């Protein structure tokens, strides 16, 4: 892009307006992802889902957001006021900032960082601090336990998450997300999901856990911890924790598409006439649907099972995956 050649006021304004448009798109996505999630879960459980507000219930989430906006803002007397206010912001900001490096098509990408993947993981782990702070600053026993549990879960699954994509990095030899997608051109048999199937499975499991979603939503286990780290949060401060979670759904679905499903490339070469962005959106939406589907299907797992799964199964498996990938690369090189 020519815009990237030099930094002038007009190019700066282009970047700014692009970022504002993306923010609007993400907020729109979150609004309808929540609606869609409730609908899908409703259908799976043989209910109708939201259908009262607006046609087909389409304005349900809008109404919910307005309700949250009109709620009184209470900060408990015993809470650490400064950290209590800061925590939702810390949880939300990285969720949005990681989106800067996601490539939608070969031309439509905000920041083509050469350390894109590392940037994603480095920033997304900051959200853990926001959750931990929220739990601590509330000065509430449920919040504290929920926050600690959440932090333990997120750091436990971050290790396999980060390691599961090392195989992808080995195959493409780059951390730039754009380069990783370019390496998957030419049909679905080139996509990383096939040579890196184990990595893909580990990535999906660890990603769902990082998102704190069912079946790994122990931090918010209503039956034992009321609501986890955000017991004391109400109104819009609570909304920002929820927003952060759904922005991460967007980010993880986009990242899975980019890393394993060939990004904007079509599955079969003769389908290339369909615009690249359509392929990206289709793959992205199927990942989002998959996340909602498992939420409706699987029960919450127990906390001790959760920790053992992360450290005793996923971590060794991720390490083995890295070395098997490397050895196969060496063998292919040797026999060529």
């Amino acid at each position, binding site marked *: 892009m020519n815009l990237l050649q030099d930094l002038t006021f007009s190019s700066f304004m282009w970047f700014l307006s692009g970022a504002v448009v993306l923010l609007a798109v993400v907020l729109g996505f979150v609004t309808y992802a929540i609606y869609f999630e409730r609908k899908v879960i409703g259908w799976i459980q043989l209910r109708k889902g939201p259908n009262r507000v607006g046609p087909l219930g389409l304005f349900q989430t809008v109404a919910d957001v307005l309700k949250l906006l009109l709620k009184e*803002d209470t900060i408990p007397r015993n809470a650490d006021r400064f950290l209590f206010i800061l925590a939702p*912001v810390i949880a939300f900001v990285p969720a949005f900032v990681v989106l800067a490096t996601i490539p939608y098509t070969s031309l439509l990408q905000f920041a083509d960082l050469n350390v894109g993947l590392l940037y994603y993981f480095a920033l997304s782990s900051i959200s853990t601090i926001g959750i931990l702070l929220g739990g601590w600053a509330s*000065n509430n026993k449920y919040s504290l336990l929920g926050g600690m549990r959440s932090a333990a879960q997120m750091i436990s699954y971050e*290790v396999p998450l980060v390691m599961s994509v090392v195989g992808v990095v080995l195959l493409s030899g780059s951390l730039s997300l754009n380069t990783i997608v370019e390496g998957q051109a030419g049909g679905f048999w080139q996509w990383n999901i096939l040579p890196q199937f184990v990595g893909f499975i580990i990535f999906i499991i660890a990603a769902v856990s990082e998102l704190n979603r069912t079946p790994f939503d122990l931090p918010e286990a209503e039956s034992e911890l009321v609501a986890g780290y955000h017991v004391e949060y109400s109104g819009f401060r609570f909304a920002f924790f929820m927003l952060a979670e759904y922005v991460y759904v967007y980010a993880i679905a986009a990242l899975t598409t980019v890393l394993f499903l060939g990004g904007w490339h079509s599955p079969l070469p003769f389908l290339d006439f369909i615009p690249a962005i359509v392929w990206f959106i289709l793959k992205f939406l199927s990942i989002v649907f998959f996340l909602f589907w498992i939420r409706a299907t699987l029960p919450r797992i127990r906390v001790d099972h959760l920790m053992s799964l992360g450290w005793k199964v996923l971590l060794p498996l991720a390490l083995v995956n890295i070395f098997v990938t490397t050895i196969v690369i060496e063998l292919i090189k040797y026999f060529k």
Partner: protein
Amino acid sequence: METYINNYVIVAIFIALGIFLPVAALTFGRLLRPNNPIEEKYTTYESGNEPVGTGQIRFNIRYYLFALMFVIFDVETVFLYPWAVAYNKLGLFALVEMLIFVSLLVVGLAYAWKKKVLQWNSI
């Protein structure tokens, strides 16, 4: 070089926008939401009872052990990333080196496993 810097200008814009949204939403919300402070509203929630003792209770030592394990393995990934990027230029020697490094850490994991650090037995 300019392109390189401009990419980080975009990141800075994203950070600024990410901070702006919550600040703007909460400031705007102040105009809309009611403010009706009653003393009881500001007590800490504890299932409807009066809160007992302090809220920041002592928590399980296991959390600390997991944090320690996390630091070790996260540092390992810091080494794995540059290795994976440069692997095609390094070749077989780097593979053996990395195998030795990772197996040292795996011994640590096995030790923690045997010492039942990875076993979660209470909250």
